[in-house]
């Protein structure tokens, strides 16, 4: 039976933890599963409500510049059954009041379930997460964990803290929640651990999730860079008179030079052996370019001092012309600044590769974040929260989407002459995206109130879709052996040291040697076994 399942799915891998390829013996502790089997994968039943003004290309988010009238009701009546739950979510912005917040009250009322938010600063969310999970009793009923904040030993954590949603969502069970069934398979894969569905995804578009934005209003007449060298010159040219060219641009460097993502961070080398991210020439090239950028003096001193929390403030204040950030920041900054400064404008830097080569975009995990439900004896609680999730996942063009993203008409927004929502001052205080971090519909670029933004972002993403490639082990969450959990940690510090000129490339070589002897080689063996397991099953793990 088990072998049959493995054969069915190209990504279901059974590998022994300690060594030796495990083949389908009845479950012992040594056996680890890293991907969702075909039969446990929720069915994908797409909903098409509204035709996009800028259709998605190969998974890039479709763009919408108008709101359909009338809106569709995706859920008939308040789906909740009156329960009250706590939810922990990150936020990159000013944390809104949770008591007496008309926006939260209105959404909770529409759902029929009260969600009490515990909102934490997104920049330090990961540090907090490790401590929160270490004390399972204090974990909120519904907890969002961004993919980049997943703590070590998370495969243990899900088993002991969070509810296994597989029985409720696998296969056609998900069709009881039509809006959740509208979420693509990759998003569910990203939120599954140990071969089971644990998380509800916040789906992400296929393409770059982080890149550089620049202040179009400040550099209106300048030619945009088309090579890494020109990018540094561009930053230098915009430095002076109390302004600097750039914040930290690591996300740009990784895209230009095609650096592997850090998780899991392996690719097949020329000789067929696995090569880790830190061993690749691309990683080196990106670091060297960053060193050059920093030494040019065009990076804002506070960014040099590693104060990334205020990167947005510096950018919006005009002290920095370019910033590299999650692209979700783009429309937030526009919404924040346009009311006071109608000329405020942001655009995204064109994407280019180094030395005339094409850039490489490694396909991001299907979900930027996953939210997890705390284990409970009472299955009714889980189904109530899934109903809530179904409400939150209502796609663009529904009343629910409108409510979650804009608040209440007349309170948080007024409809302008063109039928587009105009935010009120109350919205600026209260409507902070929090529900969207719990779960949401497939990524759309739906900010009809910012049509110029929708056009720019959609065309940029569509143009870059051709550079997307799947990294090795795509769609899998691989739990590394615990003893190697932190051997990669020194590189995070070293990257910062190298680009700021405090360490040299020779230090990188030394760190790689240390990494190899501290368990890097064992990790290579570990991943090679998984890789060979995938190959021998006849499936291909990567494109």
């Amino acid at each position, binding site marked *: 039976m088990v072998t049959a399942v493995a054969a069915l799915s190209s990504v279901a891998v059974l590998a022994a933890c300690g060594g030796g390829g495990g083949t389908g013996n009845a479950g012992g502790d040594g056996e680890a599963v890293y991907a969702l089997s075909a039969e446990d994968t929720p069915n994908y039943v797409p909903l098409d409500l509204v035709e996009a003004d800028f259709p998605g290309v190969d998974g890039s988010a479709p763009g919408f510049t108008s709101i359909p009238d009338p809106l569709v009701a995706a859920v008939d009546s308040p789906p909740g059954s009156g329960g009250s739950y706590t939810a922990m979510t990150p936020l990159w912005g000013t944390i809104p009041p949770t008591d007496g917040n008309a926006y939260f009250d209105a959404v909770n009322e529409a759902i029929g379930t009260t969600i009490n938010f515990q909102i934490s600063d997104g920049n330090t969310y*990961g*540090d907090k997460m*490790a*401590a929160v*999970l*270490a*004390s*399972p009793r204090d974990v909120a009923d519904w907890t969002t964990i961004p993919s980049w904040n997943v*703590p*070590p*030993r998370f495969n*243990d*954590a899900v*088993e*002991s*803290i969070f509810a296994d949603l597989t029985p409720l969502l696998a296969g056609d069970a998900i069709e009881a929640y039509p809006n959740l069934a509208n979420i693509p398979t990759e998003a569910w894969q990203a939120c599954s651990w140990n071969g089971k569905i644990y998380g509800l995804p916040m789906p992400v578009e296929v393409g770059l999730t982080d890149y550089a934005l620049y202040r179009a209003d400040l550099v209106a007449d300048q030619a945009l860079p088309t090579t890494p060298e020109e990018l540094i010159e561009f930053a230098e040219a915009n430095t002076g008179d*109390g302004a*600097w060219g750039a914040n930290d641009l690591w996300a740009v460097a990784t895209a230009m030079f095609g650096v592997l993502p850090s998780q899991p961070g392996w690719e097949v080398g020329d000789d067929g052996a696995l090569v880790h991210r830190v061993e690749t020439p691309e990683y080196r090239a990106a670091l060297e370019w960053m060193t050059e950028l920093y030494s040019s003096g065009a990076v*804002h*001193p*506070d960014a*040099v*001092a*590693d*104060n990334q929390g205020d990167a947005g403030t510096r950018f919006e204040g005009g*002290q920095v012309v370019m910033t590299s950030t999650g692209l979700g920041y783009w429309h937030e900054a526009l919404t924040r600044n346009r009311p006071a400064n109608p000329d405020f404008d942001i655009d995204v830097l064109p994407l280019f590769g180094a030395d005339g080569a094409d850039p490489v975009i490694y396909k991001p995990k299907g979900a930027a974040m996953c939210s997890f439900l705390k284990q409970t004896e009472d299955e009714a609680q889980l189904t109530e929260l899934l109903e809530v999730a179904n409400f939150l996942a209502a796609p663009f063009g529904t009343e629910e989407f409108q409510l979650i993203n804009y608040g209440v008409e007349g309170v948080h927004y007024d409809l302008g002459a063109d039928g587009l929502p105009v935010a009120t001052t109350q919205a600026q205080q209260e409507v902070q995206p929090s529900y969207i971090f719990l779960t949401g519909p497939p990524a759309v670029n739906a900010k009809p109130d910012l049509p110029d933004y929708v056009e720019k972002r959609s065309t940029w993403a569509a143009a870059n879709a051709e550079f997307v490639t799947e990294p090795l082990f795509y769609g899998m969450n691989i739990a590394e052996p*615990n003893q190697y*959990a*932190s051997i990669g*940690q*020194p590189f995070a*510090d070293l990257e*910062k*040291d190298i680009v*700021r000129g*405090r*360490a040299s490339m020779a230090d990188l070589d030394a760190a790689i040697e*240390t990494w190899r002897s501290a368990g890097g080689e064992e990790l290579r063996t570990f991943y090679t076994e998984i890789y060979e397991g995938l190959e021998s099953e006849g499936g291909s793990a990567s494109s």
Partner: protein
Amino acid sequence: MSHPSTPPAGPTATPSGRREGRADGVLEIELAAHAPQGRDGEAPSGRRRGWRPGRVREVATHNGVVMNTITWRDRLRRDKTLLVMTLPAVGLLVLFAYVPMLGNVIAWQDYSPYVGIADSPFIGWDNFVRVFSNPQFLHAVGNTLLITGFQLVFFFPIPIMLALLLNSVVTPALRTSIQSIIYLPHFFSWVLVVTIFQQIFGGAGLVNRLLAQAGYTGFDLMTNPDTFLVLVTSQAVWKDAGWGIIIFLAALATVDPAHYEASAMDGAGRWRRMWHITLPAIRPTIILLLILRLGDALTVGFEQLILQRGAVGPGVAEVIDTYVYYQGVVNGDWAFAAAAGLVKGVVSLLLVLGANKLAHVFGEDGVYRKS
């Protein structure tokens, strides 16, 4: 000097400070009994607790030396009330200090918080072996000792000097206002202190902007690893030196002005009076604080350093506490961090005991003394 006449030694000057509420007469008798410890009528050790004046007097007149004629049972009965009064504190200490200490057992485990202490396997001394063979940990220890050593020389004496200076300010109103002004930064959080320094000395800070306007190229004090030691020490001085003088001022207040007058009559100048009267008077306080500081030698401002670690890099800013934090909490290697924390705790304890012993050798009271 406008000091009111004070008793020979106040509570601050006698660290163990257990003499409150005793009649001076009794004190003298006890002093006579302990002659070797009391010096020159100031700072008697005051180690005996809760003696009833009557009994003390009785013992003292009876024998003059013998102290332990009463039985354990007698003492229990005699101290009953005091013991009952300490119970809540002991209870809190057990509950919040000793019970959590049991959690240190994870240092000998392959611990996962998701499995729990009960089910995590024991792996002997493996975590400690990893701690001592880890170059980053040893590097963090080196940084910690460097910062401690530097601050011992360039931070520790500053409150003493400030206290001496302040003590010589005659006008009470002026003295109080100076004191208040230099206390104040103590109540700022480290986040604020680091931000203020960043806003003034950072690459985009006030000083650099002024320099740039005047046509000079600036400097960035906040991201320069070479001057980091001086930077953190000046931050600590700015924030805490004012606070540190309180205890020295209290010690200075206990010096009998008659000593100054007498020595002045004998022709002692300002420096001689300081050397022969003031400094000996605050010596027990200095030694007490020095010992406590040594006990903290491996603790050097966690918040202050973690806030600036990114700016200068772990090369100079990684200390034991930040390392344990990153390794344990952020990387989830709790057992390793517990082992490293235990090592630090044991070394700190040994430092305090050793320094205390050393103080005894030099005839000082130190933090405590076994009776």
